[in-house]
């Protein structure tokens, strides 16, 4: 029997419309807007000024503090201004506006596609390279990778898991990347293994991606250091804690990190980005974004420069249909609707899903009928109905006691609720309030 995580989970319709679409390279747009905060942690500090000429791959904002990431220009051109711009957070953030002129790259960057297998750098140099190249977790959480690769003294890591699950409906960017850049991902995995000093790595892939599983198994070879684990399809298997449980059977305790059970999880896309940074000197300036939706005329997977407006991507996918009502950044389960199409592509944007007409209608919600479906699908073993009620009543301390901060915001509860209750909306609200409360307490 195939492995999966034991608690909860749902089976939303997969709708992987673009699984067969090859990654297309989108040319740089006329201008890009690169936000300085595309990662978890402190926003980067701009190091360029208005009017400066920049090359593609040049550092334009420097990491501020340990948990932060460098930002590089994704295009060559002239800095138009440094101003605020609405990004995927829905708020205005500081961003660097660059007008594109030509496509010149920093000379050290190797832009060829021939795979380089030999790893020359030492573990410390690899970590430094990730820091320099602004690599962050590309699964969506955008946690700076260099922080994750430094195992603190006293902790031990014995296994690396590469997350190739891509359990979100619609999204296929990791799937395509594994198919087309399999060799690079395997090398990237070996680089991360070297940095962490682990002997074993497992690539977790859901069973609906048979082609990727067989390809990666073949590429991994018979060394035995990297194995591929096929997993039973279930959402949210791509959640870090769910994936660890599914692959190893180890459970990360509440409030603890994967490292506490000796595991580090990296996304397949991140492994590719690490490969590019270490072997090709290429910072994180482009990523694969799935642009999909049932009403789009040409949905596909696009390799796009960071900072490209979403409108350019949608244009490439055949333009916005007339009856489009919602564009979601990310997948339909965890993603976030965006307010306008001028929002730039950021490091953490794995997909754009366009919904039309009645596809996303939000129904009027009714009272809770105590069916406990939300409890049975919660992969973290929480009680969503209770957490929603507590958040609604502003009983945040109680919500904290009921482990609201353990919620991974997968949306399974809202998905399954027969009364269409906005469980996750309220839980998110409560969670943010509890996190804020805890932070204030620790400050005192």
């Amino acid at each position, binding site marked *: 029997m195939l492995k999966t995580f034991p608690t909860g989970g749902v089976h939303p319709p997969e709708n992987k419309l673009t699984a067969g679409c090859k990654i297309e390279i989108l040319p740089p747009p006329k201008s890009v807007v690169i936000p300085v905060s595309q990662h978890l942690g402190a926003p980067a500090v701009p190091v360029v000024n208005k009017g400066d000429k920049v090359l593609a791959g040049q550092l334009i904002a420097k990491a501020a503090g340990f948990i932060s990431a460098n930002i590089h220009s994704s295009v060559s051109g002239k800095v138009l201004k440094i*101003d*605020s711009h*609405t990004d995927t*957070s*829905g*708020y*205005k953030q500081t961003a660097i506006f660059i007008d594109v002129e030509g496509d010149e790259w920093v000379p050290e960057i190797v832009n060829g596609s021939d795979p380089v297998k030999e790893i020359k750098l030492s573990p410390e140099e690899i970590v430094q390279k990730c820091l320099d190249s602004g690599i962050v977790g590309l699964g969506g959480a955008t946690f700076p990778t260099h922080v994750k690769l430094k195992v603190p003294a006293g902790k031990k890591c014995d296994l690396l898991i590469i997350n190739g699950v891509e359990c979100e409906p619609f999204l296929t960017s990791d799937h395509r990347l594994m198919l087309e850049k399999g060799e690079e991902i395997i090398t990237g995995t070996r680089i991360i293994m070297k940095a962490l000093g682990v002997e074993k790595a497992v690539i977790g892939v859901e069973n609906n991606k048979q082609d990727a599983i067989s390809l990666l198994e073949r590429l991994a070879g018979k060394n035995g250091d990297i194995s591929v684990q096929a997993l039973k399809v279930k959402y949210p298997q791509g959640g870090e804690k769910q994936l660890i449980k599914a692959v190893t059977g180890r459970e990360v305790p509440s409030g603890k990190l994967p490292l506490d059970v000796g595991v580090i999880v990296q996304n397949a896309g991140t492994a590719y980005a690490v490969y590019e940074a270490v072997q090709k000197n290429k910072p994180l300036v482009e990523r694969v974004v799935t642009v999909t939706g049932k009403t789009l005329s040409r949905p596909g997977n696009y390799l796009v420069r960071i900072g490209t407006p979403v409108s350019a991507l949608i244009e490439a996918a055949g333009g916005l249909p007339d009856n489009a009502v919602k564009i979601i950044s990310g997948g339909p389960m965890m993603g*976030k*609707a965006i*307010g*306008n199409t001028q929002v730039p592509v950021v490091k953490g944007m794995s997909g754009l899903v366009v919904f039309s007409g009645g596809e996303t209608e*939000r129904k009027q919600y009714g009272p809770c009928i105590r069916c406990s479906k939300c409890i049975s699908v919660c992969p973290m073993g929480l009680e969503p109905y209770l957490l929603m009620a507590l958040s609604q009543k502003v009983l945040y301390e109680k919500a904290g006691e009921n482990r609201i901060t353990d919620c991974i915001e997968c949306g399974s509860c809202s998905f399954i609720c027969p009364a269409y209750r*906005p469980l996750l*909306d*309220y839980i*998110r*609200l409560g969670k*943010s309030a509890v996190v804020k409360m805890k932070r204030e307490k620790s400050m005192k």
Partner: protein
Amino acid sequence: MGHTVLLTVISLGSVGLVAALILYFISQKFKVYEDPRIDQIQEALPGANCGGCGFTGCRNFAEALVKADTLDGLNCPVGGASLMADVAKILGKEAVAADPLVAVVRCQGSYEHRPRTSVYDGVKECSAAHYLYGGETDCHYGCLGYGDCVRACNFDAMYMDEKTGLPVIIDEKCVACGACVRACPRDIIELRKKAKKDRKIFVSCVNCDKGGPARKACRVACIACNKCYNVCEFNAITIKDNLAYIDSFKCTFCRKCVVECPTNAIIETNFPPRKVKAETVEEEKKE
């Protein structure tokens, strides 16, 4: 028969007496002294438990009043100066009159002034919408219009205006308890000094964007042009983060800034109509 009754009365009576004695001694032993003035003051307080004084309820406030050395800084906004004078009398302390305050909504972003650029279909609560994104308009600072403040008001002093989509404060009913100020996730509502005849002059905008984007998002946004700052003779106006602010304690209600404001972000209420200056009338005649 009579014997049984007598026996019953005596035995039950003595049990009762013993129990009463035990209870009496225990109550004496574990007696907690409570200042009788606390009850007296609580009686005098409005009993709204609104939290406007900064304490969790009227009882807590009464305790704090009795404990305090001076009444400075302690004020029940609901009862106002007369109530605080009564309290001072009970306590035998000097009354410190606090300025009465009133809440104002610092946003004029009505449907008419602020074009909608997106539609929000999530939970209809300001706190949830604020956490999620900037709102239905391009102004990421202004009123979201889902009425968290109105729900927080215990005195029926607020309502949502359906035409504008903004909350309205009824001055006569507002007691300045600050519940709406705390409920608003965007700090739009402010408690300002109450002037005679409920006159008000304030910058009705909280947009911290630069002039261009602010104006684009809302026709009546403060663009921080400094005109009001330059015209004010009383140093009541400060400009910070691309936003003007009028200090209600320094403002003398000269109304000069209102005229200067190019976007009508500064509003005046409850003033008599302006006298049209003789010169301007003449000029108009010439034309």
